[in-house]
């Protein structure tokens, strides 16, 4: 069972949900947490523990100046503008624009291009508590290929029976990369017009991908029922509401877990899991 926590709008409480759901389940079974918010991974702040790291790399071209004749074929085939041919070989290469498609190496008539791996991020593995394994994808600062780091983090998760993934905000390629293969998506929103607007966008992504989903309304307020109305209109179950509460904010802001300090939430999150597994058609 792969459950992804996503949102559209940032700061609605994705990490809060992923971390507390994992904690609440960990006295029943082993849980694998995968942090797919590789631009700003935060799950490790709630489960601090040393671990080990592996680099995430991507192949980029290296030019052999002796073989290069300056024909310019590589720059022609590169659709990302990452190669500029100068008067004198080798060409100028902008590594951050390169998508690692391999087109330049394939097209070079002189065999003057070969590829070498360049680091763009890392994957950190830790076992912070009994029954919790954390895999964090971390994009290096200044790098842009977030989906590649997400794919690497997910590849190490390989088939664990209880996997919870924390997505990045937004609706673009990193979110789709994180969501693909998920059995269920928990969309976290808040009771504001911003929350509603961005929930509608996120819901369109899960619908596109055919992933069943439900909603958690954080900082829930009776004053704003538009989010609940939206959920009803889209047949999205409201799985849980969390009110604004200074104690919850304090625990979350200082790196604590509400399902550890507030036993009622441990039950709520455990219950959430059984509702999600039954909704996703899973007996586990």
């Amino acid at each position: 069972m792969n459950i992804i926590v996503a949102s559209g709008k940032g700061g609605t409480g994705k990490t809060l949900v992923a971390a507390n759901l994992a904690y609440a389940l960990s006295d029943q079974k082993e849980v694998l947490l995968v942090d797919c918010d590789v631009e700003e991974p935060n799950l490790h702040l709630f489960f601090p523990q040393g671990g080990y790291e592996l680099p995430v790399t991507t192949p980029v071209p290296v030019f052999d100046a002796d073989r290069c004749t300056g024909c310019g074929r590589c720059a022609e085939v590169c659709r990302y503008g990452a190669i500029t041919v100068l008067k004198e070989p080798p060409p100028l290469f902008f590594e951050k624009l390169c998508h690692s498609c391999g087109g330049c190496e394939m097209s070079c008539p002189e065999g003057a291009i070969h590829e070498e791996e360049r680091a763009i991020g890392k994957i950190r593995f830790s076992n912070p508590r009994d029954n919790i394994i954390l895999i964090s994808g971390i994009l290096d600062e200044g790098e842009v290929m977030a989906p590649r780091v997400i794919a690497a983090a997910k590849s190490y998760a390989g088939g664990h029976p209880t996997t919870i993934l924390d997505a990045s905000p937004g609706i673009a390629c990193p979110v789709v990369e994180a969501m693909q293969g998920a059995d269920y998506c928990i969309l976290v929103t808040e009771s504001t017009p911003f929350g509603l607007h961005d929930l509608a966008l996120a819901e369109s992504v899960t619908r596109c991908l055919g992933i069943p989903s439900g909603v958690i309304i954080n900082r829930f307020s009776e004053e704003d029922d538009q989010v609940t109305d939206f959920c009803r209109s889209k047949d999205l179950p409201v799985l849980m509401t969390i009110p604004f509460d200074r104690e919850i904010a304090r625990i979350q802001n200082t790196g604590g877990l509400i399902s550890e300090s507030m036993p009622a939430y441990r039950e709520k999150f455990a219950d959430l899991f059984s509702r999600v597994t039954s909704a996703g058609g899973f007996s586990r």
Partner: protein
Amino acid sequence: MKKIVVISGKGGTGKTIFTASLTDLIPGPIGIADCDVEAANLALLLEHVDVRSRPFSGLEKAGITQDLCVGCGLCKVNCRFDAIECQDGEYTVDPVHCEGCGVCVDICPEKAIVMGPMRDGTIYLSRTSKGLMSHAELCAGSGTSGLLVDQVKKEITGEMGDEKALIADGPPGIGCPTISAVSGMDAAVIVTEPSVSGLHDLERLVRMARGFDIRLFLVINKYDLEPGMSKKVEDYASKEKIPVIGCIPFDPAVVDAVRKGIPPTRQDSPASQAIRSAYDKLAEMMELV
């Protein structure tokens, strides 16, 4: 013209609320851009009328002409993005995974693959009481958000003449869209919150921003929810020599303003006063008036 972008690293810290307030306080006319193309919320706080809209196409993507395809599979073998699917001997391109590199086009011996434009979003230009505003909507799942951010900036700068400032709302994160939003700007106001996540994400954002020639300012939103963490954020800012121009208290009046669809500075409240004071400092340091 001074170009200022509001960013945060962590999402949901109050970027849009602060941006809307800046546009409210600064004397017009100014240019306004919403560079958070994946969750564009600035228009929800600024009264506006649409002037025009146009479709946005990012990178072209591959398409296979079935009549010409002989099913050799070379495209699939050579695609690094797993974007070629094969079902019952029929090869097709999955547009979500296609990154538009064109390797398949070059390698196809039958010339059965061509690149074509894809609709990746819509760019809007609207008029507000303070001046023109560009904003956009990205198509769900598109891989071109950074390009769209760049286009949103060009849409507004192309319309600007002697305006004193461009105020842009940025995306969360530190990756492609944020880098695109920060590029070419004079200053970034970072809005953070006093939490372990806010501080961690701030540090990563600053390390990214140091790669640019850009002045940084810091605003701590809801600073009173966790004074201990606010102190740590201030200590970090002082070590990095980033001026803290404002500490905004937690204030239900802010959510009230968002529900009314107005910048919080339209109402008098503790948060509104703190935002005004932050604006005054920014205006002085950036010589906005």
